[in-house]
């Protein structure tokens, strides 16, 4: 009987292997690939019109919104044709691309260069603030927010300030201020509303009001703008709230980015679904492929994958520690603390613990973790 089972298993594996091999599709109407947009799509038309830094920036925005790094490549190609003495706009987009590659020093330098050439450039200050936030350099981020105040709208300037406050133990005040600023601007563009609502949801989660967070996440989703970051943040929220079955429904359409695939896999695992294994395998392949390219731009995700899906706390800790050197956002801290705890290496958690106490970050889950590690 055992042998029979073994034979069936072997046969099954062989059949799977055969399925994975290159093939000739059955007929001409077989759809092999769905493109992100049709030719008639207004965005496609816009991209055909744009040149240089404008084209690069538009592509970069698409990369961010859709979670698709191919647009980053197109953006770099568009910039490469730019001249040697780059104008502010080129420096600005180049800075964005550098921060994408985690060359934060280079990014800050380019963005500063853009500010010098064009002192009224809002984006340059906003992005410098964002890079400082990623590095947990809150005083420097606040400085950039201050520089924004005379240039940007009330909502944007408030958003910048609130982002810093929300990460430094003043989530409630940040929430109230940002909420008021949003209410005062019912005409704000959908993308701006989306960002603001996502922040509000995060702040609410941070000061322990999940139902309020839920409401803002839903408002943001109802805007109908595809945003990878929002989807990931809401998926994390649902996982945290032990509602994994909703993650599958939420992300069904958007399996493209590693970011979201990680959440899909975590949700499947939380429900003991058989496809958890398949998702984890696909993620593993993507990380391996990135490794082949010599890139590790997604160390935090990789650490999370190693910790929660592969059950390899030591490897997860190594990835999380490496990630912490470059990126110090709350989720980077979370995975580092969890990996250190799981690997039984409390010392390795020290940098994240220091950040937690120095920043005054108030998320209950992180504080619980920290207490366990003391």
């Amino acid at each position: 009987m055992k042998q029979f089972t073994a034979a069936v298993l072997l046969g099954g594996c062989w059949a799977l292997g055969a399925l994975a091999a290159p093939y000739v599709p059955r007929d001409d109407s077989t759809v092999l690939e769905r493109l992100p947009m049709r030719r008639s799509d207004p965005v496609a038309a816009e991209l055909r019109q744009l040149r240089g830094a404008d084209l690069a920036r538009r592509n970069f925005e698409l990369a961010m919104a859709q979670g698709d790094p191919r647009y980053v490549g197109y953006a770099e190609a568009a910039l490469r044709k730019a001249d040697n003495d780059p104008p502010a706009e080129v420096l600005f987009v180049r800075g964005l691309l550098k921060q994408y590659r985690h060359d934060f020093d280079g990014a800050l330098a380019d963005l500063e260069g853009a500010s010098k050439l064009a002192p009224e450039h809002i984006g340059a200050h906003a992005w410098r603030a964002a890079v400082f936030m990623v590095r947990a350099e809150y005083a420097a981020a606040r400085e950039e927010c201050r520089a924004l105040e005379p240039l940007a709208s009330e909502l944007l300037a408030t958003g910048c300030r609130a982002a810093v406050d929300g990460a430094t133990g003043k989530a409630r005040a940040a929430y109230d201020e940002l909420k008021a600023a949003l209410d005062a601007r019912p005409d704000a563009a959908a993308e701006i509303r989306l960002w603001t609502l996502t922040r509000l949801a995060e702040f609410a989660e941070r000061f322990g009001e999940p139902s309020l967070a839920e409401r803002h996440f839903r408002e943001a989703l109802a805007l109908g703008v595809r945003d990878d970051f929002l989807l990931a943040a809401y998926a994390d929220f649902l996982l945290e709230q032990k509602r994994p079955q909703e993650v599958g429904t939420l992300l069904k359409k958007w399996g493209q980015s590693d970011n979201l695939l990680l959440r899909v896999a975590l949700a499947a695992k939380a429900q003991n679904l058989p496809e958890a294994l398949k998702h984890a395998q696909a993620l593993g392949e993507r990380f391996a492929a990135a490794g082949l390219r010599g890139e590790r731009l997604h160390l935090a995700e990789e650490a999370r994958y190693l910790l929660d899906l592969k059950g390899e706390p030591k490897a997860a800790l190594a990835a999380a520690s490496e990630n912490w050197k470059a990126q110090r956002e709350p989720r980077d801290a979370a995975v580092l603390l969890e990996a250190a705890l799981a690997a039984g290496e409390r010392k390795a958690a020290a940098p994240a613990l220091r950040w937690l106490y120095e920043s005054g970050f108030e998320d209950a889950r992180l504080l619980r973790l920290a207490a366990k590690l003391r």
Partner: protein
Amino acid sequence: MKRFLLALLLASGTAHAHKPSDSYLALTAEGRELRGQWDIALRDLEYAIGLDADGDGAITWGELRKKQSEIAAYAFARFSLRDCRIRPGPMLVDEHTDGAYAVLQFTAECGEALPQRLELEYSLFADLDPTHRGLLRAQFGGQTVTGVLGPDRPRLSLDAEGRTRLEQFLDYAREGVWHIWIGFDHVLFLLSLLLPAVLSAPRFAPAFWEVFRVVTAFTVAHSITLALAALSVVSLPSRLVESAIAASVVLAALNNLYPVVQRGRWLVAFTFGLIHGFGFASVLTELGLPKESLLLALVGFNLGVEAGQLCIVAVFLPLAYALRHTWIYRRVVFVGGSALIVVIAALWMIERVFNLKLGLW
């Protein structure tokens, strides 16, 4: 203005993780030729030359198929192997983690024999996407090499000689050991001849010498044909060789059940050993034979085979000798084992003669 605002708005996405554009390039040395497979994402091909003829946002097999020659022309204008002529073969489709890929098969001819050094030049999508990479995996000179090609690194040399001669020698020796370990047909053939060797031995020495004669005869015979085939002096169709190997196992095991040859087992080992040598040779050719170090590869591989063989004998002989008078050895191992070998090898023979897949092993 709105765009500028978007910058801050989207700033939280700094650490987004996804799949950038990669192509997968696999090269395998096969005799004098290189066999290649190049997987290129349909999304990238769409961006470069346009596949979606009706603009509906979906790429069908029909749309892809119509562009086959255009794709091959585009791709192979951006990839070359120095001193080799690339001949595109049929196009297939495969799924990778980020979508469907066109699979371009090709062969490369590089003259009389494969050069010691392969020089690749790669510029696919260099103008369209500087983050594109070509991920290379080559089985060449008895080793597997991986490498990354891209706009920053358009050239790559693969050196069979990058490894010292000793390392190459050891590579081939390892392959030889490995092949005898996984080459069940060779192992079973040898065992069939060795099983009876201890049966009537009064002392260890005669048993040892009987085994020694058989193993040496087998070794000498397959070394001769291995060398002849590897040097392209003689070549036989592989289906014939594989079928004959299976037949040799059947006959050797049958001889234990219904003895025909009893004295000169070494002669049997020698005769059939000649056939097994051709089998080893095909493995060696698949590994890719470097022209400059042919002899080294040949000797290394052969010694590896012998080493693997000796390990098997070293385990088998003392065990069999110790157990030779027991009922277990005489009935179960000798008779039962031989019968089992006959059945297994007969199935192999049917598979190989009729080119079937019965799913054994």
